[in-house]
């Protein structure tokens, strides 16, 4: 159990030799944050799993009216994510901001009970939940980078993302267990989901420690508060600019899960009721590979692993456009797609962390993640258009080409940064 180890500093390096590492080779703070993410994802995915049942059968609503506001929410949370990152940096309270994000999402679960059949109220509750997710991600990742020596960041993010994935995997199972136990009572699932989310906040408050910024980050001037000007200066900082640009570019070449599964289902005529299992297959590959690939990134460098990850994405799209059929296509596509996530999601932040100045690191990570989120939004619109004009197979071939181009440009953008910072 991690509990016995978390109360002591994780990154203490005993005199001589390699820094001492905890269970799985990562620090207590990382394991505590991983546990918080695991529990939170159980809670979030419980709701995800039953929300369609609740809206359609519990409330008898027509859920097609919900998709409309999607883009608006994404845009709003993207901006607030950066604001949250800045507040966390300015007051050096990353744990507090992350905690506020987790708490907001927990309260949103109860909001579903109060919203009743009102579509605008349900929309608002979902927006609050997303807002919570938006503002907690960057401070949480910044806490991981600040609690881990730079040479172990890949492994730390790998372990964190694997724990996150386990939670996402368990959530639907827990939700269906509740439904089996109490019958079609969705309120009971929401209350249980709230309790699980609240437990995650308790674990965060008790076991996640926020240390002062590492010595040597900015010397004596470190006592100054981060100003808006300093945070905005990130965009004039060449390494940070390159990071955000590369993240956005790579995001632009990513067509989104929905499209990947839709293409796979159409190619293979997967029985429609097995459709949800496609996502399960991907997340299984993701949670199994995230840890090992993170460790690999520490040994051979983060950029090669990220490049390998986008190589896997390139392979995924080629498979969807290519001549392979049947089970080989299905298994290979899902394995490669899971590999893509495992090799890029945490590793990209592990690559970004040390490049960003510690004083404004949360803002920097938020900028990278916001750039990605906005790029995803744009890429899904563009892919929809490509599908209309060229048809699905040609569109995904073009997407593969876009991945290759984005990857080349990104390597050109990122190579100078990693040469300077790691190893």
């Amino acid at each position, binding site marked *: 159990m991690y509990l016995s180890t978390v109360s002591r500093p994780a990154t203490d390096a005993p005199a001589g030799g390699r820094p001492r590492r905890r269970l799985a080779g990562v620090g207590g703070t990382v394991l505590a944050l991983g546990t918080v993410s695991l529990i939170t994802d159980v809670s*979030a*995915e419980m709701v995800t799993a039953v929300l369609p049942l609740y809206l359609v059968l519990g409330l008898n609503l027509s*859920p*097609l009216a919900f998709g409309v506001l999607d883009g608006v929410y994404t845009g709003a949370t993207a901006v607030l994510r950066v604001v949250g990152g800045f507040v966390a940096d300015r007051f050096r309270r990353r744990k507090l901001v992350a905690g506020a994000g987790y708490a907001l999402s927990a309260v949103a679960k109860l909001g579903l009970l109060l919203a009743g*059949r009102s579509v605008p109220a349900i929309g608002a509750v979902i927006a609050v939940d997303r807002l919570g997710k938006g503002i907690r991600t960057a401070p949480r990742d910044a806490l991981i980078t600040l609690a881990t020596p730079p040479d172990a960041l890949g492994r730390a993010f790998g372990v964190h993302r694997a724990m996150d994935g386990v939670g996402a995997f368990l959530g639907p199972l827990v939700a269906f267990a509740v439904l089996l136990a109490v019958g079609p009572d969705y309120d009971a699932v929401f209350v249980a989901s709230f309790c699980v989310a609240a437990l995650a906040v308790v674990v965060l408050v*008790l076991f996640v420690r926020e240390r002062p910024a590492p010595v040597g980050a900015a010397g004596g001037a470190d006592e100054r508060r981060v100003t808006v000007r300093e945070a905005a200066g990130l965009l004039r900082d060449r390494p940070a600019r390159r990071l955000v640009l590369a993240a956005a570019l790579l995001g632009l070449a990513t067509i989104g899960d*929905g499209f990947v599964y839709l293409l796979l289902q159409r190619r293979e005529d997967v029985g*429609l009721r097995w459709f949800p299992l496609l996502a399960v297959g991907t997340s299984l590959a993701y949670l199994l590979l995230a840890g090992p690939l993170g460790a690999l990134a520490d040994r051979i460098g983060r950029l090669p692993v990220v490049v390998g990850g986008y190589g896997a994405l390139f392979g995924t799209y080629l498979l969807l456009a290519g001549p392979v059929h049947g089970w080989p296509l299905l298994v290979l596509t899902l394995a490669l797609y899971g590999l893509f996530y495992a090799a890029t999601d945490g590793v990209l932040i592990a690559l970004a962390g040390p490049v960003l100045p510690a004083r404004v690191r949360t803002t920097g990570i938020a900028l990278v993640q916001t750039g990605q989120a906005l790029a995803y939004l744009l890429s899904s619109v563009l892919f*929809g258009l490509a599908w209309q004009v060229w048809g699905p197979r040609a569109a995904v071939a073009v997407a593969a080409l876009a991945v290759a181009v984005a990857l080349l440009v990104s390597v050109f953008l990122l190579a100078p940064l990693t040469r300077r910072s790691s190893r």
Partner: protein
Amino acid sequence: MTSTRAKLVTLAASVVVLGTLAAGYAVVSARSAPAPASAADRAVTLRPGPRLLAVTDRHVSTAALADPTGPRAVADRECLRVYAAAGTGVCLAPSSAWSYQVVVLDAELRPTRRLDVPGLPNRARVSASGRMVSWTTFVGGDSYTSSGFSTRTGFLDTRTGAAVTTLEDFAIRRDGRPYRSPDVNVWGVTFAGDDNTFYATLSTAGKRWLVRGDAAARTVTTVRENVECPSLSPDGTRIAFKEAVDADPAKGWRLSVLDLRTMRVTATAERASVDDQAAWLDGTTLAYTLRQDDGRPDVWSVPADGSGAPRMLLPGAESPSPLT
């Protein structure tokens, strides 16, 4: 360390308190849930007659058209949507706590065919001859943070046994040109007298269209914009449908009738927002489900020609179907 101990004690206490809260809520709300409806008090059949078929408390029921609020026959068979014509019924029924199937019924409510379908029950229809059975389900988004709901619509030819599991694979002509898009959704099928021509709703790029389909040729062609959940009149000349107010479904729907010869639309006297595929009780009257604020359904009827006023037909019921 004592601080570690204190933290572990706090954590354990939190687990106990939160666990008790979750379990306690489940127990209390399960106890206060209404008892299931008493089933099977009278025989229900789908044989043609002056009766109205509907779903009462998730069970198949019939009531006399002459006295709809009178005694109601409720069967054991559980359905979320039901429809019947010429002695053939379709029932969208649960197959587990979270999955559903299309069940084709004979006149005595015996299942003759079962098809597993993805998602959650939405619409169900049988063509006037009893031959073509169609359905629509809602399929949820992949994740909580991407609220991508879509529909799946299919039909079954009960004579040949051939089933189409999703109409999204049909070739689309929009405004005379071939059209394709990943965001195409189809819902609410109604078959014409030849059991090959059908009408349905097609949505893409934020707009909703009435489409005319050809089951054998596997094509659909757009006919008119802003027509949802079409229901063909018994003589095949008019389509009852829900028309989004100001072409914006967020503002609700007006139950209306489209004359296929003149393409003129007449709004019915029903002012409340109708989110249903209406059923023709005869050549002049529509029946449909309206929900109260708490979600409880009632079946209402209104003249199809825009005259008169809506009246409640069957309280506490939904998914109406005349037994013709």
